[in-house]
């Protein structure tokens, strides 16, 4: 039997069937919780946001216009909820930190690829093993907070550069700089762990920093 599509469950839930809504929750709770955990890096806050997200979705279900998937809709609710928590945590610090790191010439500090090698396993194999999964999440946790948020919103959730900038209250230039930094940093760490050392390549030598 093929599982009932999300949209049909949404219709039944809108018609007043809690069991249908619960099925939707069962399907998407792990996705929402994982997203919240990755954004907030904290179990307690991730639980709060997950619960708020589904209560919110239940309460406002009739406003879900079905222009996106249910999965996308609840992800957005979770994201905005999590960002609110992060802003509250940071308070005014958010603003001052922004001012301090805004210059776009951050590029000078951009990490250059050091460990360059093909990976020994495919991404599909890597996400399915506990050992490697832990490593992948640890690498994410080591990113500077705003780089992590940019990476999650842009690359994992698929928001545009503009949407990411608006959601985080930073400039589009800053989104791009932080995204590149996050991608390079994650690549470096993951390649050190998953790269095949026997196939390691030396980076090309260039005098990149000298010409300015």
């Amino acid at each position, binding site marked *: 039997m093929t599982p009932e599509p999300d949209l049909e469950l949404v219709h039944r839930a809108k018609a007043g069937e809690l069991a249908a*809504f619960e099925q939707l929750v069962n399907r998407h709770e*792990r996705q929402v919780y994982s997203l919240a955990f990755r954004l907030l890096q904290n179990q307690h806050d991730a639980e709060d946001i997950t619960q708020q997200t*589904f209560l919110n979705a239940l309460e406002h279900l009739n*406003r879900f216009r079905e222009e996106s998937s249910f999965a996308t809709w609840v992800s957005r609710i979770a994201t905005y909820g999590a960002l609110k928590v992060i802003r509250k945590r940071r308070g005014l610090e958010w603003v001052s930190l922004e001012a301090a790191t805004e210059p776009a010439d951050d590029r000078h500090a951009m990490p250059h690829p050091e460990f360059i090698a093909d990976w020994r396993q495919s*991404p599909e194999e890597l*996400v399915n093993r506990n050992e490697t999964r832990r490593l992948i999440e640890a690498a*994410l946790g080591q990113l500077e907070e705003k780089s992590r948020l940019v990476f999650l919103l842009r690359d994992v959730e698929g928001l545009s550069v503009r949407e990411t900038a608006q959601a985080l209250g930073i400039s589009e230039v800053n989104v791009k700089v932080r995204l590149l930094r996050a991608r390079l940093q994650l690549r470096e760490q993951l390649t050190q762990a998953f790269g095949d050392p026997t196939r390691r*390549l030396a980076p090309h030598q*260039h005098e990149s920093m000298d010409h300015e």
Partner: protein
Amino acid sequence: MKCDDLLALLNDYVDGDVAPALCAELEHHLAGCNPCQVVVDNIRQTITLYKAGEPYPLPLEFRNRLHAALHERWQHAPTGDSAPTRASTEPPPDS
């Protein structure tokens, strides 16, 4: 084009946002520069990896609490539209 020029355009290239002429130039560089090609592959795999993962299972105790809360809310406000709106908890539109 040098490796550093590629690095500067890496985001746009991975996202498919590079103008065709420049893109051809980039690909010409990649064809002759194995390290850069591997870096691009690594970055694509990195993104795939995080997109594919739902790494955190719900703690069982929390899962029970969540479903209990849903039942509770359902009893007090069984239909979506009739609930009073609160700007601070309003979900974003899905368009």
